[in-house]
């Protein structure tokens, strides 16, 4: 029996090309797979911009006992036995947004065209479109054991590179004039 999988941001922060580049091809090809057209607002994976040079892809964590399902008053969020994840029954969904507020990751969203909830369905079990398209190869559909392996490597990288904290610190983007005069010319 197949194990439950989820999309993991398998970044390699020790490589410049091992970090999400912010190209958003995952969003574009997710929407193409599900809707046959390009529309990042209908994507089930979102690249969140946290500041200059900081982009992070976020998608459904495929919780075992998900808050979205608990919040749904219409039993529209159903467990899929084959994929071992919950999926949205589009016929039952009313677009009430209760699940949107309940999801701790903010990644079940309302489709702006169908006005119903959408979430990652791992593209039905084939290789997910986002994983296939990612030019930096930082997305993977992994089961828990494999996800643990990646988290361990990533944690090790954080320990190894003490400038990582500086790398990811937001802010400091405004031009500063005050220190200019101290510089020798």
């Amino acid at each position: 029996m197949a194990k439950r999988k989820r999309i993991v941001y398998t970044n390699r922060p020790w490589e410049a090309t091992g970090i999400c580049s912010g190209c958003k091809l995952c969003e574009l090809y997710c929407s193409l797979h599900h809707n046959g057209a390009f529309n990042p607002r209908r994507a089930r994976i979102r690249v969140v911009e946290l500041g200059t040079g900081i982009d992070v892809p976020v998608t459904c964590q495929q919780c075992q006992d998900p808050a979205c399902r608990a919040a749904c008053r219409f039993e529209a969020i159903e467990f899929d036995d084959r994929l071992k994840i919950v999926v949205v029954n589009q016929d039952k969904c009313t677009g009430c947004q209760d699940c949107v507020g309940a999801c701790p990751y903010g990644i079940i969203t309302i489709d702006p065209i169908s006005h119903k909830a959408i979430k990652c369905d791992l593209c039905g079990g084939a290789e997910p479109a986002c994983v296939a398209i990612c030019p930096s190869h930082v997305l993977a559909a992994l089961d828990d054991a494999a996800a643990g392996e990646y988290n361990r490597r990533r944690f090790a990288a954080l320990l190894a590179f003490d400038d990582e904290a500086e790398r990811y610190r937001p802010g400091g983007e405004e031009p500063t004039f005050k220190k200019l005069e101290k510089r020798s010319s």
Partner: protein
Amino acid sequence: MAAPRNSYAGRMLRVDLTSGRISTEEFGSGYTDLFIGGRGVASKVLYDEVPPEVAPLDPGNRLILSPGALHGTGAPAASRTTVAARSPLTNMHGDGHAGATWGGELKRAGYDLLVIQGRAEKPVYLLIDDDRVELREAGRLWGLLTSKVHARLRQEAEDQDLCSVTIGPAGENMVRLAGVFHNGADKGTSARCGLGAVMGSKNLKAIATRGTRDVGVADPEALKAAYRDYLETIALDPYVPPATRYGTCRFMMHRVKFGIHGAENWRYGAYDWQGLDPEVFRSDYQIKAGACVACPVRCRRDYRVTSGPFAGTRAKLEWETIARSMTCGVKEADAVIAWSNLCNHLGLDIEGTGDTVAFAMECFERGILTEKDTDGLELRFGNVPAWLELTRRIALREGDLANVLAEGVKRAAAEIGQGSERFAIHVKGGEMTAGDPRGMPVRAVSYATSTRGGDHLRSNPYIEEIMTPEEALEWWGSEEAADIAHGLKGKGRMLKFSEDLVTIGDILGLCKFAFYRSATFPYLYRKGVHLATRLYNACSGRSLSEKDMLLAGERAWNVEKAYNTRCGATRADDVIPARFFEEPLLGGGPSGGAVVERDKFEKILDEYYQDRRFEPGTGLPTRAGLERLGLNDIAADLAGRERLGG
């Protein structure tokens, strides 16, 4: 709702700021058949709607925002949007191209084109929220930096996916070096040609855009197949790995190889470049290998400074920022990052600003300007604090000198006089960019023929470096075309081809670095013509041939040429500054002592005009040349104005 059948939205939006009238029009075959999208459409709209009687900063000038035909789709590196207007720098055709998400958002809102005309009485911004389009009061946004405006618009709309086009203080002050900024300071800039001043002259601070519709694709499987072929091509092309590793900073090695830095206001060919080594930027300052939207090449770079006087600065920059810093004699990487940050937030075009400040520095070193003129700034080459401070003053028009420099280098030199015109390095009024043309004759001609003033992204004459003599013979009828320094025959034909080639990129919205740079000519053709055509056909559902696509590039170029001709340009304007003809390149190195030889320059230009079907003596377009491209209306217009060549 069914997905749209192809990648066109089918509508355009027109906003008259004077009357407040907002209207939609069909965007149909009248635009797409011949002009396709992006720069092709923008150039035609500019020609049709802005006659020479309308000055660039008049309300009658248009601000034309035209996403590339493939922008918004998942075609690789389809990230570019054209912004066009009559340029306040050159008084001719002006446009700038930026790689960001705004153009795709305009398409998702349901528009292939946005045309803005008139002038608002008070500062306003335009909100486009799908079908809801309105002008809103922007007093509270006036004076804000580009980054702040973008953040405020997102905050007020309560939508972190909202896209924007803004100007900074420089655009508000109608600085002729102001750019139009996409999604804040760091995402992309339609920088050249003073388009920010046009937007400022209209009292338009920003265009906030939210689009929730689909961008269709006619044949998704054909698109995916072309995408796969693109990936296979860039996996083999030796051009790509250094681009991904260093970003556009990698062009430093090209400038070093040929000794064509143009440092200290286009005087030094060889220069002390080690502090600006791509490896310094990569290992000490780079955050990661970033990308513009939809691009698998990832040569976009964001940098951060962690120590020294500029600690805390984060900025996006490209090779040209480094090149223009060297033009100002600056050799420190952290200062370059700080300057990029400053220009981007204030809303300045880095290239134009760099050349203009370098001009002022040369005037200062030669005693034409004194500390009295500069309000105490010791404006020497390489003086970083003075460089940054003058940049800030130009954006704010603070003080008499900055106010004059804010008009761009050509007008500033005319105002300052005393022989300073000689140090004003510009073509048609647009400041020069990229490498020094001395020692590379076809490069020199390419700057001269550019339809938007001095510019290196208008053509690809560097293909002389990657072509084999056999390929040159096959394509341009002479092995000489592959000889960089001494070749003559075939160069003009090669230049014409390369202009048409990169124009395709601007029409489709494909990035020039991802599609129009390669290590060999077969890769270049495969990406820039073959795959570009396949991607367009897959998304649009049309069936253009590669020849049709090259003709579309040629057509857009001819529209721009005709526009400039109508504005009064002749062969005399297709020229580069006298410095390049008369002053040998300093500093030694591979091109040390070189000048552009005038007779070679004229011979290449002759061949180019002949291949373009322009009248040789005057450089005017001809009826036969225009009608061959289906531009009969333009031929008739030029004939009526007695501006048609024979």
